[in-house]
């Protein structure tokens, strides 16, 4: 047993988190910042933070993850990090020449109380920021929220710093949420397929799933440009995908530039993709093309074909709030039963209500912890197991100990390929999730069937 000390005996814990189902804000901010073209994320804290964030993101994406740090020493921690940040800005623009530096804070600099705008202003005044280049920031104290909060804050900062009102264009802003580069590509593709011009931010496609060509680019092709961010204030509307990760930016855009915002679930699964496409259609005043009808119809077809094998399956899910909500809706639509759900993110009462509403039919053994940890989740499973586990790589320890089929999804995935290239959003993404779940469930069925029951055809 890998988690040999976990038992079904649940003791109340108020202070100790065991096997967290979240991590801290700055990593989310770093990931979001990488979705700006020519941007170097900068961690204003001690150098351990950026090392850990870069390592974790690299393990997930298997791609270079560039960022810088203020490299606080004890002195900086006592006297404030202004000198470090000024020096960093100078060095970064001199040596690495990014278009923009996205500063996020850490628990250290937040505890000290460094005033980033003031420092940036000083850097500007000192001429450390070259003409036409930018430094912007988000406050991402690690002791508030989670990596999702950090992503949301940095995305909102893009609006706060750059969006400018202007004569209404025909463009729509798409705020994709904390999803994979491949998902961002797919979200854009759906809009493009509908003939809609979109500004998508952040956009990590081609930044964190780039090609191998023998030529390294510190600032890869992808990412939203500062120009696009500026223009986003003149868009017809915004669609913020995911209340936790994207709504703050969408609502800030509305407040700042009067660009109306629809906050939707992540477009994972049939119904939330329907909602996304329908909202796009109505917002842009366009018709949904047959190509999308076809994708949708293929998904419905596949659901009907494979329904018997997923029907009624009890599923345990660990993930970020936006993912949990959309996945729960999808699984319920498949007549599956998500019964144990944990997110580490303190997503709030409203989120939990929405989740419970989505899972109203899940049955009487529904257990939800917002926030909770994987240790508690595992204890539930010890009490009564499930048919399928879905969540990040850390779940594999539970999957192995309890011998439960496991589909990797969410963040981080440290031990398999695929998530960088194949979306889980949209109808195609739902097909992929369907395939993944079926593979897991059917492989298990076949493993556990006797020779007599072993089937050729399914």
């Amino acid at each position: 047993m890998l988690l040999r000390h976990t038992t079904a005996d649940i003791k109340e814990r108020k202070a100790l988190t065991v096997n967290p189902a979240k991590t801290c804000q700055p990593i989310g901010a770093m990931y979001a910042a990488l979705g700006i073209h020519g941007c170097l994320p900068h961690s204003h804290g001690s150098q351990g933070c950026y090392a850990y964030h870069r390592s974790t993101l690299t393990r997930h994406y298997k791609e270079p993850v560039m960022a810088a740090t203020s490299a606080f020493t004890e002195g900086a921690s006592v006297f404030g990090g202004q000198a470090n940040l000024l020096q960093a800005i100078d060095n970064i623009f001199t040596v690495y020449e990014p278009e923009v530096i996205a500063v996020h804070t850490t628990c250290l600099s937040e505890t000290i109380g460094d005033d980033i705008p003031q420092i940036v202003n000083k850097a500007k005044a000192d001429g450390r920021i070259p003409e036409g280049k930018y430094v912007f920031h988000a406050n991402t104290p690690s002791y508030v929220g989670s990596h999702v909060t950090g992503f949301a804050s940095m995305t909102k900062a893009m609006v706060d710093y750059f969006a400018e009102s202007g004569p209404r264009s025909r463009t729509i802003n798409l705020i994709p949420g904390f999803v994979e580069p491949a998902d961002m590509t797919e979200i854009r593709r759906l809009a493009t397929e509908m003939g809609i011009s979109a500004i998508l931010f952040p956009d990590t496609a081609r930044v964190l799933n780039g090609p191998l060509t023998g030529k390294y680019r510190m600032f890869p092709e992808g990412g939203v440009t500062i120009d696009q961010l500026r223009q986003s204030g003149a868009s017809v509307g915004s669609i913020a995908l995911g209340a936790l990760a994207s709504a703050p930016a969408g609502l800030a855009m509305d407040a700042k530039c009067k660009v109306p915002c629809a906050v939707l679930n992540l477009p994972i699964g049939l119904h939330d993709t329907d909602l996304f496409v329908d909202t796009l259609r109505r917002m842009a005043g366009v018709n949904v093309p047959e190509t999308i009808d076809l994708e949708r119809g293929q998904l419905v077809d596949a659901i009907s074909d494979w329904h018997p094998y997923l029907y009624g399956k009890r599923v345990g899910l660990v993930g970020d709030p936006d993912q949990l909500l959309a996945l729960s809706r999808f699984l319920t639509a498949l007549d599956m039963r998500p019964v144990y759900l944990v997110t580490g993110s303190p997503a709030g009462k409203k989120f939990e209500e929405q989740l419970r509403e989505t899972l109203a039919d899940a049955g009487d053994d529904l257990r939800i912890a917002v926030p909770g940890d994987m240790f508690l989740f595992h204890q539930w499973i010890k009490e009564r197991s499930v048919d399928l586990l879905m969540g990040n790589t850390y779940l594999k320890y539970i999957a192995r100990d309890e011998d439960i089929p496991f589909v990797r999804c969410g963040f981080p995935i440290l031990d398999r390929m695929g998530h960088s290239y194949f979306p889980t959003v949209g109808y195609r993404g739902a097909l992929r999730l369907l395939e993944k779940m079926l593979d897991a469930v059917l492989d298990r069925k076949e493993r556990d069937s006797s020779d007599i029951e072993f089937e050729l055809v399914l």
Partner: protein
Amino acid sequence: MAISAEYKDADGVLEGKDLEGVRRRLLEKYPPKVARKRDKQIVVNRVGEDGSVPVVMSNVRTVPGLISQRGCCYAGCKGVVLGPTRDIVNITHGPVGCGFYSWLTRRNQTDPDSSPDGHNFMTYCFTTDMQDEEIIFGGEKKLRLAIQEAYDNFKPKAIAVFSTCPVGLIGDDVHAVCREMKEKLGINVFGFSCEGYKGVSQSAGHHIANNGIFTHVVGTDDAVPEGDFKINLLGEYNIGGDAFEIERIFEACGLTLVATYSGNSSIEHFARSHTADLNLIMCHRSINYVAEMMETKFGLPWIKVNFIGAAATAKSLRKIAAYFDDPALSERVEAVIAAELPAVEAEAAAVRPRTEGKRAMLFVGGSRAHHYQELFAELGMKTLSAGYEFAHRDDYEGRRVLPDIKVDADSRNIQELEVHPDPERYRPRVDAQRAETLAAKGVDFADYAGMMPEMPAGALVIDDISHHETEKMIALFKPDIFCAGIKEKYVIQKHGIPLKQLHSYDYGGPYAGFKGAINFYQEIDRMVNSRVWGYLKAPWQKNPELAAKYAFE
């Protein structure tokens, strides 16, 4: 013996390039102040006749914004040194991230079933997940409760607490809480003030870890394990099973391993490790403090060993045998070497035609950048350049320079414990005369010669290499393989050059000992000869002209 370190025959110049020109290229883009600093950390190796080498400025602050490989004090303390001990509940006191990132990411293998109680908490991440209210009102209460909950849920024999950045700032007295809970629970509870901002790198964390473990654990159990030749292995963290391979060899040789710091370790091993006869140091940087303190307090001498590379392994074993000076042991050691080497040599011979003459660069850690040069040499590969991520001058230049090292402000406040001989348990294992005899046989007590004396003149030594310098080195030399860590891996590979992770071994290993050498040979063969590096250009990029349309008829 077929395996030798051929790079010493190198011509002493980095492939004919103007060495100062190379240094200039690395530095020219820096702002003057930065360039001045880095100038002292980038050194062309020269080895004097007395073995002296140039000074390498090291263990100094990383320049903000420059993008270095380094991590923090917490990473060195909790991640590196304490993390691999399976039966301590290690609670990270701070916001969630630090605990999360150091959860199972270092591949320290462990065998819990080799302990009677079977405890293993390494698969768990424990954190106080500090929230803003604790930042404002203090986190001691939560920590106290967390320790209690850890005890209630897991009943461990020890709990350790690791402070992350904000803890020091808000002034939580972690040590007081630990003392209180130790009292209350009746188990060993101790804390580490290893806030991330301390020191200039992981190195500070190693030192703090050494201090803590020495203070709270070492010597707390005087039971003497059975065995004629009792040793401790220090600075071996059992990445990918390295320690298991070394244990296998020790067992074959008849050596009794009392404790490993800290791969495949139990806190009980540390507690009685002072009863051993000899300390062996693998990673000098991370662990020499404990060795020093044990020598002072208990009279236990230490020697530097290296089990990376088959020749190095054989040499280290012979050194140990020489120390014990027992004919039966020496015979057994020789028998083991004789039994193990043929397979290693056969594999080296098979692989070498495909690796001979290839060129490596190593920028990693505090010992691996040195040790792995051995393995490359056994493959006929030469090391163009190397450097450490968090080492001190003694790791580069050898302990002979220790008296000359100036401790700067960043390191000064890492506590140096004052240690004295234990009135009851101090027992010098070798007297001065015997030490001299042994030194003549190559048993160089309390010494580490450093990396540079073993590198050819002309090789470039770069401390705390930056991303910029890495890029320049790649552009200038296009090495056949680059060794570093996960953050560097794909940067290098985007160039079409394989990167071998020497922290995690790219999830391979073991690479220590004899079997490890075979694994490494095969892995390097795979990497430098992978077909994929030939796929970087599409046919239409190689040959862009359009053929006549009717070429197909």
